[in-house]
């Protein structure tokens, strides 16, 4: 691949990102601007921003790579990532916005009147954020190596630096503009080459994918772990989305609960449109780029196809466009995650003498260092599957906290803490065992996709311990429920 086009594409995306960020900075003045863009972002802007932030390297590169490798069974990942938004809409969106809190730890504290829950939730936000950031940074290294031949660490460090500069300079307001721009960039970058690729494919006489039978069929063997894995992926992605820190923080930037719902509905449309595309790349990869399977670089199939199928300068330009899209994917997701993790850590720091905005800036720089070191030292695993652990962890902890906190008056602080710790340990230990030891057999299967058992543990602990400590139910729970569930235009008493 001609590296000049690729480098130009990456540089353009970086400059545009920083430029739009600086434009946002001129408008960020207050703490509220910094943390939640002063809660005044319209549904269309906000949903583009959510789409831009949510469609990470796992979506842009990972899904096509998984389809290339494993076939039909992998279509569950994008389905799960979209369905997760629908469940977020119906169980969480409007009440979370109406709660008036900035972050999940804020919500926990407001709902349960306990600093203990706040501390545990903050620690978990950081854990989920790191698990999600690490593969983004690694993917950036892989992309830049594919395009320019630079060593892996270059792309990783470049993305980390741009993210920190962006967050430190503009906060949430500038991030919103950057993310919205990046959704449309990603969609365009994936859409335009598809027309060229399909045209070339028809010119070749429409060859069929070359693959074994089980690649074409979901569940060709009924007795293996396939069914467990599929349902576990479903549970993790369906329920994990609502607990991802960078997803949840976006809901506080809506003006009210009504707008939060509108936003989520538009997001469903944006995600559904986007996810039609990676499958096409995966299938075409089976026809034109099967050698990537053997060299273990399936994640790069999206970037490789144009130069292989079309070639010439058209192919190079399309490849550069895809590189730009991939780079936008790393930048937007990493920025959003860093922003939300830094928001939580910064609030903790700001209790001391430093100002809130300084605290946010210090926290942003600090939060990037750990996943950066992890990305540089850890062995690479497929982007989409390592993201799954972040989803499983969020689904086992924040999903029960949010769903029970919003819909069940009986939740107590001790119940919430038990569930957060129990669910978090289950999913966390499974991730460590899988990444560290890679066990075989059914134990390995259970550890590699823990959600099917760790989510019930989280829910059961929260409900069970809450029932056992029934006398601890916060005295003002009725008032909190009024606040969470009544439309804003009603003039009722929402004080705590």
């Amino acid at each position, binding site marked *: 691949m001609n590296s000049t086009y690729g480098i130009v594409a990456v540089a353009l995306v970086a400059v545009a990102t920083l430029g739009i960020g600086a434009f946002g900075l001129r408008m960020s003045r207050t703490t509220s601007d910094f943390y939640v863009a002063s809660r005044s972002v319209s549904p269309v802007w906000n949903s583009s921003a959510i789409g831009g932030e949510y469609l990470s390297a796992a979506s842009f590169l990972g899904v096509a790579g998984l389809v290339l490798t494993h076939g*039909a069974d992998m*279509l*569950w990942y994008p*389905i799960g990532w*979209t*369905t997760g938004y*629908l*469940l977020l*809409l*119906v*169980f969480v969106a*409007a009440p979370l916005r109406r709660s008036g809190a900035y972050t999940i730890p804020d919500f926990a504290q407001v709902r349960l009147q306990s600093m203990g829950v706040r501390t545990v939730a903050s620690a978990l936000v950081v854990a989920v954020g790191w698990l999600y950031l690490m593969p983004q940074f690694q993917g950036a290294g892989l992309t830049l190596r594919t395009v320019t031949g630079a060593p892996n660490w270059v792309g990783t460090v470049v993305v980390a630096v741009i993210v920190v500069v962006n967050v430190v300079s503009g906060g949430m307001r500038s991030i919103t503009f950057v993310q919205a721009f990046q959704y449309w960039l990603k969609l365009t970058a994936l859409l335009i080459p598809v027309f060229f690729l399909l045209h070339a494919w028809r010119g070749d006489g429409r060859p069929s994918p070359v693959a074994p039978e089980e690649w*074409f*069929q*979901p*569940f060709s063997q*009924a007795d293996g772990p396939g*069914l467990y894995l*599929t*349902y576990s992926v*479903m549970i993790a992605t*369906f329920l994990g989305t609502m607990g991802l820190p960078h997803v949840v923080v976006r809901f506080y930037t809506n003006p009210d609960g*009504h707008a939060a*719902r*509108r936003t*989520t*509905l538009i997001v*469903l*449309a944006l*995600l*559904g*449109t986007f*996810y*039609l595309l990676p*499958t096409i790349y995966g299938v075409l990869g089976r026809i034109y780029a099967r050698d990537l399977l053997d060299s273990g670089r399936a994640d790069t199939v999206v970037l490789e196809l144009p130069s292989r199928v079309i070639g010439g300068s058209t192919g190079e330009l399309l490849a550069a466009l895809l590189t730009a899209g991939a780079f936008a994917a790393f930048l937007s997701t990493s920025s959003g995650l860093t922003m939300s993790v830094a928001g939580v850590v910064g609030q903790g720091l700001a209790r001391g003498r430093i100002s809130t905005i300084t605290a946010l800036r210090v926290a942003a720089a600090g939060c990037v260092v750990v996943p950066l070191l992890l990305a540089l030292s850890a062995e690479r695993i497929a982007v989409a599957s390592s993201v799954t652990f972040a989803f499983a962890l969020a689904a086992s902890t924040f999903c029960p906290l949010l769903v029970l906190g919003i*819909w069940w008056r009986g939740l107590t602080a001790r119940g919430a803490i038990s569930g957060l710790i129990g669910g978090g340990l289950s999913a966390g230990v499974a991730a460590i065992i899988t990444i560290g030891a890679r066990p075989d057999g059914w134990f390995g299967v259970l550890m590699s996709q823990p959600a099917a058992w760790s989510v019930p543990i989280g829910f059961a602990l929260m409900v069970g311990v809450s029932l056992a400590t029934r006398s601890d139910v916060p005295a003002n729970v*009725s*008032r909190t*429920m*009024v606040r969470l*569930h*009544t*439309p804003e*235009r*009603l*003039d*009722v*008493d929402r004080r705590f």
Partner: protein
Amino acid sequence: MTEEYTGRVRITSPLTTAPAHVRRSVRQEINESTGIGEVYMRSLIRAQLRAALTVAATLALSIGALPLLFLAFDSFTEMHVFGVPVPWLILGVLVYPGLFALGWVYIRQVERAERDFTELVEPHGPDQS
């Protein structure tokens, strides 16, 4: 020396110290968390939860049942439409408009529930008290 009879006189208390009878608004009931206020709030929350659970159940019975469906009916997975295997068509394309439609129906439902609730609390628009 009898006093002049002037007819029967009814003596009533003016009840100056008793509270005047005022119609209490639903908003007051909610603000003071009275029994009635709680009943209103619970009915709103229940309506919204019912809408959410309907969506969740629909998902479980549609997308959630697909793996079992594919497993149970081999012939189904081998069908082709326009040269594309049916499972790929369902999982790769048709699921997404379905999810959007479900979200759209849900929003219509809960927004109606919230409008009804607002109507109940403030029957004549938002500015009286």
